[in-house]
């Protein structure tokens, strides 16, 4: 029951934020020169003024800006995200189509980064300033400093062009459409390179944070007590240190899950994946307000949900936090 009350309170608190974000994005896009019809003309390679006027009417752009904003908000209250001008169908269904690849990619690369971040962070912290630590830290710096599009392209060159082990792009094999478990395996094969590309940067962050936080906790009094009790080092690390060292990691994953759910334009473009990031980019270029606002709305909702989940995890990891909340 307490959870639901907490959830309700959180949701109520985030409604004004959500409204502010939506109105802000709407107004910002008004400052960008050109509207969706200009963008369409650019794509078509030209057209006459009568066509343009006709199209503006078709997309409802002949109304004043406050009227357009009012219409939008009123529709939103009725949970209607509107109609996408690029896709010619309801925004909700456009976003729903793009959500699975995005969520798959994000979950895969975050789990990859989180898991290996912990492993490498612990290894580095336990051998601080010895060679494993130096090696891991250098690798982390390289991963962090390399732009992801370059990583992606190099991975394609090595694994798809030279070795021919993995596909160079796409979400699944189009030549022979598969079903059931084979389709799952096929999609997994297509996601290996994008997951690595996106995950490596996050891996670098996680292992640095994990290393620092491990080092901090390792020096606390209760760890010395645990050692004095005669516990072996593995037990000390896993049962006493790790759990407390995880707190900053959980904070970080909560923050990053939010950004990552907005999609990654770069990785999605390099690997030709149909994700939310590319959709958002395209809607900005095409001035497709409804789609863009829809994506903002959905990602904002997801951020709120993820943050709530993170709070719950905090409480489990450290009961003191729940007592205060």
């Amino acid at each position: 029951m307490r959870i639901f009350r907490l959830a309700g309170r959180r949701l109520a608190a985030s409604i004004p934020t959500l409204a502010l974000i939506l109105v802000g994005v709407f107004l910002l896009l008004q400052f960008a020169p050109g509207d969706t019809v200009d963008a369409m003309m650019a794509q078509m390679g030209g057209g006459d003024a009568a066509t343009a006027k006709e199209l503006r009417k078709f997309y409802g752009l002949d109304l004043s800006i406050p009227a357009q904003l009012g219409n939008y908000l009123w529709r939103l209250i009725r949970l209607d995200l509107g109609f996408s001008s690029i896709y010619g169908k309801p925004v909700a269904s456009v976003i729903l189509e793009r959500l699975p690849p995005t969520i798959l990619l994000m979950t895969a690369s975050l789990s990859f980064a989180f898991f290996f971040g912990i492993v490498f962070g612990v290894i580095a912290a336990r051998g601080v300033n010895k060679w494993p630590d130096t090696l891991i830290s250098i690798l982390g710096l390289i991963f962090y400093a390399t732009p992801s599009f370059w990583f992606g392209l190099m991975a394609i060159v090595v694994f798809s062009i030279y070795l021919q082990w993995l596909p160079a792009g796409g979400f699944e094999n189009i030549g022979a459409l598969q079903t059931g478990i084979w389709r799952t395996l096929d999609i997994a094969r297509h996601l290996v390179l994008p997951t690595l590309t996106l995950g490596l940067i996050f891996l670098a962050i996680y292992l640095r944070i994990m290393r620092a936080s491990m080092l901090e906790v390792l020096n606390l009094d209760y760890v010395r007590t645990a050692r004095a009790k005669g516990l072996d080092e593995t037990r000390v690390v896993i049962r006493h240190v790790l759990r407390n060292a995880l707190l900053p990691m959980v904070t970080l994953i909560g923050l990053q899950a939010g950004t990552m759910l907005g999609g990654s334009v770069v990785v999605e473009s390099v690997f030709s994946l149909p994700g939310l990031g590319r959709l958002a980019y395209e809607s900005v270029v095409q001035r497709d307000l409804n789609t863009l606002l829809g994506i903002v709305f959905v990602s904002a909702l997801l951020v709120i949900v993820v943050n709530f989940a993170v709070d719950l995890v905090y409480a489990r990891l450290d009961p003191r936090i729940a007592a205060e909340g």
Partner: protein
Amino acid sequence: MDFTRLAINRRTALLTSAAIAANVINPLRALAQETPRKGGVFNVHYGAEQRQLNPSIQASTGVYIISGKIQENLVDLDADGKPVGVLAESWEASPDGKTVTFRLRKGVTWHDGKPFTSADVAFTAMNMWKKILNYGSTLQLFLTAVDTPDPHIAIFRYERPMPLNLLLRALPDLGYISAKHLYESGDIRPNPVNLAPVGTGPFKFVKYERGQYVMADRNPDYWRPNAPYLDRIVWRVITDRAAAAAQMEAGELHYSPFSGLTISDMSRLSKDKRFVVSTRGNEGNARTNTLEFNFRRKELSDIRVRRAVAHAINVPFFIDNFLGDFARLGTGPIPSTSTDFYPGAGTPQYPYDKAKAAALLDEAGYKRGSGGTRFSLRLLPAPWGEDISLWSTFIQQSLSEVGITVEIVRNDGGGFLKQVYDEHAFDLATGWHQYRNDPAVSTTVWYRSGQPKGAPWTNQWGWQDPAVDKTIDDAATEVDPARRKALYAEFVKQVNTEVPVWMPIEQIFVTVISARARNHSNTPRWGSSSWHDLWLSA
């Protein structure tokens, strides 16, 4: 300007052009005698998704590259660039040019099994070409009716004379037919058929996964005997150019049309035996790089300043160093690939001459002030194509040498069109002028006065010349081909004298295609054409 770096660029450009020339000729000649092989999947790079796929209501290569295989046009262009019947078998015009009669092919069916008739032609012409299709609505402005006395005869009636050669050169792009029975009820624009096209062509639409791919399969009932050869075509949506090049190399793509890869990747792949890199098959999609002047700026309304700007820019140097073999020196709005209308290079030209440029600017009263600057201008480059970006920087540096400071203001597509053609918030603008086989389709609008504000790629310069307007109007309704050609030669001479827009570079799109493909690039608009004879060797 950093000349040492340019010198290196020049050398690589020359080397790669030699390599391209070698590569283009060999595979085509060597393989002329093979027997076509049936079957295979052809994978095509699709760079920019469109909002819909019906070529009867949207004229753009992004639509033709897909629907040109599914829907068909009345006429197309043959290997020599001459009109050849597709859904029309023959045609004739009345002597006054006010009626054009098309005799249609018999025994053609739509992919859903219904017969194709003149009712489809009449419906498409009156409701799509005349009302919705970009450029079509201008071309068919004076179309009053399409009579259908017989299921296989369509008679186009015009209020003013329509030159037959104009119509026949415009119809390959602006003459795609849609099925009346699928469109006659309800609004045309939101009709779902626009995203799942139904046609009479060699390939049947199968599936469109937005953001991923479009798929079409062989039409077993196609009217041409033994065609098509391919089993399936898949268009893969790949927005990143470098990623598309990688997929070409990994063998996942067979064809990247319309300069879809970066200039450096095209040069690199041209040295690889697995690919053919060429401008062949794109002659019908010629374009020129522009420099557009805003006459609302006092300085630019002076003809001496416009000419000085043109004289200050070393175009051959730019082409050699940055565009290599993919471009050549332009001589005006009608490119040299347009054999029917190209007036030759005898019209006024503005060769590179810095001293002359400086003298013209002095004469116009714009002497170098403090710091050597005469005045400054805002240049808006269009965001399509890396050549425009390079060209705008080159303009900036060239003009700074004669004392004109240029500030480059970059926008995305929608922003560029709005600022230049609607708000007129530019001094100089640069982009592409697309030439569509006849100057009346999309070229003369760049110069004819009275264009409504906001219409992209039209005369928005604040410039008008009654003599030019008259030449344009006369040519548009002149039915005699020889007199029409002479009028357009006169037009080029006039606008090259006044230079409201300068078009100094000609370009043709570059094709990158697998060396396994046969019968490719064999017409001037091959990327848009139906591919009924395309096949893949083993």
